[in-house]
């Protein structure tokens, strides 16, 4: 059970996130800026997890923010918070997970096209030989017509797994190849950085946030040796990166894997004061989601196995 400090910090973050919503819907990365997809989805997930009023009150509160997500949809089905700018596939994958969790009814209006859009985008196949890395594997890029990287791949894989029943044809094959790509980019020690396990012949080190994100997408593959090695890495590094986002993602990930997350949540409660001071709404929302994990059990990041 969460301790008193964790509960106080969750209440403080709940109040702050509620206050920082833009009146026209959605949340920006930082107060006073334009609403963006990623902080909006995380804030919705976090506040839903912390919500204590009635379901009707939640619907009233959330509708304007879900409308913002819906307004981001483009003709190709993908979501874009900045018209004319490249679409961010990591945010699109997260948005699909969010809609699946919070708004299956209203999400039905945009989810099929969003999933079509996600499946239609493939990272570039690069034919340059590389002894360590198979650059022909195609998963998801940050934005269309570029190379595949860990974070967008993880969110798109998780979205397609969560929404398997309405995912378009070809999804299963995309998931399979994306998992091969994640295995290929796994660092020697286990874990991931943004997506290169080595450079110029040197092994590169994994980072905590992309490791936790990739592991969320792979929790139905926990028996695979490279996934097991990566969860071991994350457990070893669980307190090393002291930020709201790193500790929050770690706590959520450990919870999904059924590991003890209490010590991470306790540390997060301390660090979240700094997170709030720096004002990154995305990080604050990740922290809040982790601090209220006892209530929602990280359901938004789980898939049926």
């Amino acid at each position: 059970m969460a301790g008193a400090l964790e509960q106080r910090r969750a209440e403080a973050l709940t109040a702050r996130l509620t206050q920082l919503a833009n009146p026209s819907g959605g949340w920006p990365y930082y107060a006073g800026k334009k609403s963006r997809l990623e902080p909006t989805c995380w804030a919705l997930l976090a506040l839903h997890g912390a919500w204590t009023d009635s379901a009707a009150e939640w619907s009233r509160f959330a509708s304007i923010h879900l409308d913002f997500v819906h307004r981001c949809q483009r003709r190709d089905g993908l979501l874009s918070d900045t018209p004319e700018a490249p679409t961010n596939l990591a945010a699109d994958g997260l948005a699909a997970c969010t809609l699946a969790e919070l708004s299956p009814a209203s999400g039905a209006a945009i989810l099929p096209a969003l999933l079509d859009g996600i499946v239609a985008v493939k990272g570039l196949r690069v034919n340059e030989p590389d002894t360590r890395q198979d650059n022909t594997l195609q998963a998801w890029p940050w934005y269309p017509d570029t190379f595949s990287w860990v974070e967008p791949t993880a969110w798109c894989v998780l979205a397609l797994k969560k929404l398997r029943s309405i995912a378009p044809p070809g999804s299963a094959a995309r998931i399979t190849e994306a998992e091969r790509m994640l295995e290929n980019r796994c660092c020697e020690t286990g874990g991931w950085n943004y997506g290169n396990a080595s450079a110029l012949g040197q092994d590169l080190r994994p980072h905590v946030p992309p490791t936790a994100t990739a592991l969320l997408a792979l929790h139905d593959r926990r028996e695979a040796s490279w996934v097991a090695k990566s969860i071991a890495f994350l457990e070893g590094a669980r307190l090393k990166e002291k930020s709201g986002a790193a500790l929050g993602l770690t706590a959520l990930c450990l919870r999904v894997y059924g590991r003890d997350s209490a010590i991470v949540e306790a540390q997060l409660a301390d660090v979240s004061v700094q997170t709030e001071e720096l004002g990154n709404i995305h990080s604050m929302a990740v922290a809040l989601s982790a601090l209220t994990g006892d209530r929602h059990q990280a359901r938004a990041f789980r898939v049926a196995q």
Partner: protein
Amino acid sequence: MSPSDLSRRDFLKALPLAAAAATACGPSEFRAADFSRLAMSPVALLPASYEADLADVVGRGLDILGVDVRGKRVFLKPNLVEYETDKAINTHPLVVAGAASAFLSRGAQQVIVGEGPGHRRDMEYLLAGTGMIDVLRDLRLTFADLNHDDVREVALKSHFTRLQTLWLPATLLDADIVVSMPKLKTHHWAGMTASMKNLFGTVPGAVYGWPKNLLHVHGIEQSIVDLTATIHPALSIVDGIVGMEGDGPIMGRPRPVGVIAMGTDLPAVDATCARLIGLDPTKMPYLSVAGQFIGNIDTTRIEQRGERLERFQTSFDIIEPIRRLQLPNPP
């Protein structure tokens, strides 16, 4: 050939920078009327240590260069990449603190610090780990996370990347004076990273992702030139107190040099920094090209102010892939 069939090498082969460096830039890469180079570019070299009064050091540099910041919104762009206790990877927070204090004491309306790291998106981790958060607190400075700022599409002023526009952070674009504040480091691909390469951190990750692969695909050196031509910082303050030699910009070793280099012409500052560490700026394609239209890199058009270059010249350990860029007789 579809984009999916192109190799990264094919992309690079198609780009014009090496040819431009060897000959002269053509009208397709930039409009000459958009640029004017100084007849002589002053570069100040100031002895410094992390124990010194760095506000005084930077202030003297501003005086030497005649930079007036009264009433201006000044944007400081340090280099924050990765946090490791035993490495000299990042611009030291004390140099940023010194610069901010110097600008404020000379009448700047506001000083904003901003960065958008390319390997890490977790800004809180970097600010806390590097100690930059203490500088922000002590001086009550605003921090702009350039990876997650509002963005505007900007027409590039040169096109060596073949890109016409880039989305850039609004806070950076709205500043009156942009100051590039790099760490002086070797770079295993570009030779050296200083004032110009530091601008990679202005490209927003929330749009282009992590790493800033757009810039790699379109050519690191080409991107350096296009970003410098477009953002056109008014000033550079290089943290060369302790630099990085060997396999920079992350895996190298700390190397004390004891200098703060400052100037209003970024190619001139970077050319001077290259000579400081034993590299030949005329052999570095991005500096050669920048020297044709953005600023000066020839010693005959750089006026050394403060201390003499020779006082700080240090022969950095240069790894094999970039050894071709060394001066014929490194210091």
